[in-house]
């Protein structure tokens, strides 16, 4: 092997080490970003669990609507009763 070939080989090895270092740096950066994403996604998940706990009782809304309908029906009964009694009291 000639001296020039050896020199080129050394240059190739050095370039390979530089490439390895660049790859390590870029992959470390990538891992840092992915860790940030993971942490924020975990925060979103926890917030959504809290929101789900808050909205879990919305099943009571239709029940409340039914109860309010019952109040209205009872009020109509009172209206009928008062209408009958009012006629007798006035006469």
């Amino acid at each position, binding site marked *: 092997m000639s001296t020039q070939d050896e020199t080129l080989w050394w240059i*190739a*090895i050095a370039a*390979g080490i530089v490439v*390895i270092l660049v790859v390590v740096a870029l992959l*470390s950066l990538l891992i840092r970003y992915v860790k940030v994403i993971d942490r924020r*996604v975990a925060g979103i998940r926890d917030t959504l669990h809290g929101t789900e706990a808050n909205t879990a009782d*919305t099943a009571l*809304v239709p029940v409340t609507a039914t109860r309010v309908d019952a109040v209205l029906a009872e*009020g109509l009964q009172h209206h009928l009763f008062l209408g009958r009694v009012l006629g007798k009291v006035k006469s």
Partner: protein
Amino acid sequence: MTTTLVVLTVVDIALLIAGLAVYLFWVGGLLARVATNLEDCADTVRRINTHAEAIVPGVSHINRTGGVVAGALPLLYGMAEQIVVGATYSPPTEERPPARPASGTRRSRLHDAVGFGPR
């Protein structure tokens, strides 16, 4: 010298491959965890959406019925007040005149007994 170069080249390539493998394994684990969390988020959002579907029609129903009740309550208490006014005793406000006998002048029978008759 050539052996050294070959060994260094092999070490170089092995380091590159090992580094890539380690980092990709690490990133893969992190991304798998992120995917699991995102799947959990999607399920939770779906459940929240299901919960929220009942809010708008239920609240509209309550609002409508509550409006009817609120509009009818003044009518009800107006009728109740009229009943109270009609059923409560109110004493007469004018002064009573002196009491007079209902039978008029009292007639005595003593005069009849002695044969006296007023003209």
